[in-house]
């Protein structure tokens, strides 16, 4: 079976002071190949933890994750990661960064150069091949990170707030790029975001998580990602259903945040 299946995963962190944090509790999810999932939730609800488990950086205390029939036991090139920022190798040029995955596989220089050139053209950085990454703007750096991830041809792409550090305009352009790449490459993508609009635009499926313990609160299936592939994203946002769902989710998260605050105040007094 192809696709990613998350089976009753729980994650508990034992703290040095003897206590423990239940970061995730019984999270289950099935993702078919080529699906685009966005994950929303208040801060601290375990989104990053979930993604780290999917990437294989953390082993869950309970449950397991299966990709294409194999249990995930560590990081691997079939699962690519795009981080919020600062994960590029600043000692390498743009070209070397994008070619890192093929190089690790021992790919010959020629086919590697072809892949790199192609991907840099796709993300619109063909002219910046030999630049140092620290000479690029934040948005350009994230495009390099996307290209680097794609160069490795992963089955699943995991993104932890990949656009979180960008300004609104760049962010919108990048959202379009993510949709375009998703449609063209047919990758399975999990994208974590703090922006409800982004989650709506970039989620064929949308997961709202609740905190303490981190769990799935509600799941949506949405038409907007499909619409946005060949449409202006601003048009998509004007869709009547878009506003409805946005208000609903905002209210949901607002309630959760309020509950957390209330609990904290209770603990404080």
């Amino acid at each position, binding site marked *: 079976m192809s696709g990613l299946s998350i089976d009753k995963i729980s994650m508990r962190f034992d703290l040095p002071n003897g206590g423990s944090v239940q970061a995730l509790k019984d999270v289950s999810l099935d993702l078919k190949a080529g699906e685009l999932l966005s994950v929303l939730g208040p801060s601290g609800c375990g989104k990053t933890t979930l993604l780290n488990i999917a990437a294989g950086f953390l082993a869950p205390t309970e449950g397991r994750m299966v990709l294409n029939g194999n249990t995930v036991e560590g990081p691997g090139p079939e699962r690519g990661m795009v981080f919020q920022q600062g*994960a590029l190798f600043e*000692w390498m040029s743009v070209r070397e960064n994008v070619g*890192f995955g093929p190089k690790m596989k021992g790919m010959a220089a020629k086919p590697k150069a072809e892949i790199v050139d192609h991907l840099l053209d796709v993300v619109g950085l063909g002219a910046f091949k030999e630049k140092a990454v620290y000479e690029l703007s934040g948005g350009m750096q994230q495009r390099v990170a996307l290209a680097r991830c794609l160069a490795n041809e*992963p089955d699943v792409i995991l993104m932890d707030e990949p656009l979180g550090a960008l300004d609104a305009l760049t962010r919108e352009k990048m959202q379009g790029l993510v949709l375009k790449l998703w449609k063209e490459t047919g990758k399975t993508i999990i994208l974590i975001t703090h922006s409800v609009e982004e989650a709506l635009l970039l989620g064929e499926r949308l997961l709202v998580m609740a905190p303490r313990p981190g769990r799935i609160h509600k799941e949506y299936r949405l038409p907007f990602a499909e619409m946005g592939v060949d449409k202006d994203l601003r048009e998509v946002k004007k869709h009547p259903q878009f506003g409805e769902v946005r208000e609903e989710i905002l209210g949901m998260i607002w309630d959760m945040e309020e509950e957390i605050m209330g609990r904290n105040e209770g603990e404080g007094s």
Partner: protein
Amino acid sequence: MNLLSQLGAELGAVFVTLLSAAPFIAGYIAIILLCALIWQTVKKFLTPKADYGSLKTVTFGDESAVTSNTVASVVSIVLIFVLWAAFTGSKLLPSFLHAPGAFEGTGEFSYTVTTPDGQTDDATVSVVVFPAGSDVDAPEVDPGEGFAKNDSVAIAAFRSELLRVDENDEIGRDQDAVVSAINGVAVEPGSVVDVGFGDVEISRRGTPNIKPSGGMQMEPIWLPAPEAVWSRVTEIASTGFRNSTLAEHLGFSLFRVVVGFILGAIVGIPLGYAMGLSNWFRGWFDPIVEFMRPVPPLALIPLVIIWAGIGEVGKIILLFLAALWIMAIGARSGVSGVRISKVHAAYSLGASKWQIMRYVIIPNSLPEIFTAARVAMGVCWGTVVAAELVAAEKGAGMMIMTASKFQNTDIVIMGIILIGIIGFSIDMLMRWIERLLVPWKGKG
């Protein structure tokens, strides 16, 4: 209590020294402010630049608006040489800029002798003060009338002379006659009389001590003039000092530093990597490294001399130890400073452990290692000079230590300047290599 009073006395002495330096410090500050004022005035006539800094209206308290003023730097360095030249009577400076020098030439004063039975008589002392380094005999003088006879004496500049004025007198100290006045001013043991070209002080036993005025200039034996130091540089560069040329002395010091540093880096960097990558190695070496780090390398000199003698081996061991801990700690923090997302990204791109090491951890640690290398080179340079001060047959430190024993102040000053220049050049070189090899430093 005894210790406390001793410390109190020491503190008092320090305070007195500081106080006596106060007028010079105040003068120096006045010069700084004066130059600033002059520069402010000059600047008004130059076209103002419209760069970022000069358009700021709030500059006081804005750290970023404070940049090093190049004019001030140049003036300050020039001033050091001017002051040096002025206070050593250098020929490089027109003489009206010289600080008042020591008295040279002739002078005289009279003294009065009183005998126990009340007789008094006057006589004159002729003094010739000649420049240090030359040799002049006391002039012949007419003994004159009375039982007190005229005297004469030749004194080198900056020196003083106890003159037994009664030695040629008919009634002298052996008959309990005393010097009762100088230039007509009544004196007793301990009094000081200004006689124009200097002071005459009556010693405890009643002998006049002639102190021609020393002026404000430094004696060459304390501080030689710049040109004297320079001529010593050229002399030693060609003829050498203690069987070795200047280049050999400096070359030996540099050789020790480079070899000791390289050995320290060869051992220290892998050690630091091991400590950064493995719990076991971190636990094993942490106590050793953390203990050895605060031990100043200079404190190891005696032990190294006992173990390895004063030859090259001992010095290189010392410098190896000086560099080792610094390099190990630099490499360790370079490894632990790697951002976890970079390592995660590399694993997700299919890198093996070895590839992570080669392509992520090592390049990521290079900036820290270079910083450590700069520190280590500085410490090694300081340590080698100190070790050579203690014991060596060749080297910059040995050169200035031996010179100081023979009061060759010019060589000492030359050595200090060269040691400073070399230390500075080493740092500049390291910075340059760093910019070349790790241009991404601080850009992550």
